[in-house]
């Protein structure tokens, strides 16, 4: 298994353009953005107020990268990059005709599991670096600009931050697993990198807009209970779990109020685990039963 992991790491990191533009772009982009800010502060000290027109909240900067995939608007855009990466990981072997070389040499379940583990690990590593870069850069910005940092750094703040950060990392991890699974399912079905990326995005976007669709259908068909299906989607449970973690209460989105009752944290976490495991099993099943003809 260690050899398989090493082979997968070598392949994914060796595909430099792909991993550069879809994964390393996050930490490199963060370095670029913050370096530009710091440079501008040095070059134009008089424009400090215009450049830093919001308070420097270091806790948000540290947690930002972990929750950036979760939002509806920018989140969908941000998710497109890891989806393309995962599609290239899972469908690339079909495009290059390389499954033929490795599939007879190992169990298919192992091959797909290792791909999944390394793809998720690389994405988590990228977010971790981005988080550290963003957090540290906030301290540097404060140092250069003389602006004070919020919240004040003390034992209590640090303790609360550690808990929040762990929750953000856990949620970010779950989102990455779901992204990898969606891209993998799409790739197994289309056997093409472009097809996998487009179909993976399609699944994500469809799920994001499922609530209004269900709402409309429930009204049109006069079946109000239909909307309850939304409670079983990953998107709803991610948002609900995030809300529980951050606010200590279930999500209060106005659409969600139409659901029967607010769901507990345990319900949402349980559902997310089922989705993560279930979607991986679908990937494994699809790969295991298919004929490798390319």
């Amino acid at each position, binding site marked *: 298994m260690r*050899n398989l992991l090493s082979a997968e790491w070598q392949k994914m990191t060796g595909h430099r*353009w792909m991993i550069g533009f879809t994964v390393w772009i996050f930490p490199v982009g963060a370095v670029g953005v913050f370096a530009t800010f710091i440079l501008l502060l040095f070059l134009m000290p008089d424009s400090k107020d215009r450049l830093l027109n919001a308070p420097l909240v270091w806790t948000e900067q540290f947690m930002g990268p972990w929750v950036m995939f979760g939002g509806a608007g920018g989140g969908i855009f941000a998710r497109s990059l890891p989806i393309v990466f995962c599609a290239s990981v899972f469908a690339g072997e079909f495009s*290059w005709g390389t499954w033929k070389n490795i599939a*007879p*040499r190992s169990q298919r379940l192992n091959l797909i599991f290792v791909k999944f583990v390394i793809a998720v690990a690389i994405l988590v590593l990228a977010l971790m670096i981005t988080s550290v870069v963003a957090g540290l850069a906030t301290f540097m910005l404060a140092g250069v600009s003389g602006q004070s940092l919020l919240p004040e750094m003390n034992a209590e703040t640090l303790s609360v931050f550690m808990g929040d950060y762990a929750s953000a990392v856990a949620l970010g991890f779950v989102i990455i697993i779901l992204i990898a699974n969606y891209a993998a399912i799409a790739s197994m079905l289309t056997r093409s990198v472009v097809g996998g990326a487009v179909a993976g995005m399609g699944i994500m976007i469809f799920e994001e807009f499922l609530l209004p669709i269900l709402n409309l259908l429930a009204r049109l068909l006069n079946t109000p209970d239909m909307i309850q299906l939304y409670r079983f989607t990953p998107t709803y449970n991610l948002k609900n779990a995030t809300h529980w973690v951050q606010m200590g209460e279930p999500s209060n989105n106005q659409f969600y109020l139409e659901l029967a009752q607010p769901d507990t944290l345990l319900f949402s976490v349980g559902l997310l685990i089922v989705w993560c495991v279930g979607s991986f099993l679908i990937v494994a099943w699809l790969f295991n039963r298919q*004929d490798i003809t390319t």
Partner: protein
Amino acid sequence: MAAIQVSSLQKTFGRGKHQVRAVNHIDLTVEAGQVFGFLGPNGAGKSTTIRMILNLIRPTRGEIYIYGQSVQTAHDVLKARVGAMVDGAQFYPFLSGRANLEVVAKSGGVYRQKQVDSLLEQLGMTDRADRLMQDYSTGMKQRIGIAATLLGQPDLIILDEPTNGLDPKGIREIRQFIRDLVDIHGKTVFLSSHLLNEIEQICDRVAIVNHGEIVQQGAVADLLAGQVALRIETDQPQVAYQILSEHWQTQADEQPNWLTIQANRDDTPHILRNLMSADVSVYQVMTQRRTLEDYFLAVTDAEHNGELAHA
């Protein structure tokens, strides 16, 4: 023990009206310690059969055994004893030749850097091993492909078109390399190629597959034994053709007034008697040894003609 034992193998793609039977009842035995040639025209079912042997495609029916173990149930037999190159050499274009070999070796759990280096040297690729695969010529890719099949020192090596893209010198080197694998190292090689001259020079036994079925198989020497073609020059080739084609497979030669007859040397007096009794003059008679290519075309054409006749 047979290296490969295939029985009643079938593969059907699609359903209903779109159903295509790619492989239909193939029975095949490849004994250990020989080079076995697997021949057939495009679309005959060669690649599908090879993919089923490698468990890349599930058979619709039939059994495949490698050294007595079913590939469908004992997956480790492929990992432990088989090295294969299917559909030519296909690798990760963004990795070097060396890195590609490392990845394949690691995927099979047989990674040893020394072996990778040694194979690169044996295949004459040491100097170019660190160049990206996308910059390799087809011949260089083929060499890396052959090296990949030998990772982990498998007993059975399956090669699909191994000499594609190689220059004549490269073809000769690879031919000798494959022969040495069997003669010196005691391996078994299952070789699919459309270069029949290659197959004839290198293989101990062959199977000819057409329309998903094996139409002939046996030792190359046995298949070609007594197989000669007669070429005759006559003043009335059309009359001669009518007379001879009743008894022998006859075709017009590339040269005018010449006919080629698929017949044994012993048939020569009968052929001449038939022509002379019809007052057809014969100026020259030449015997020509049939090559595997002639034999292959005769077997596959006969099948094709048979089909047309039935239609």
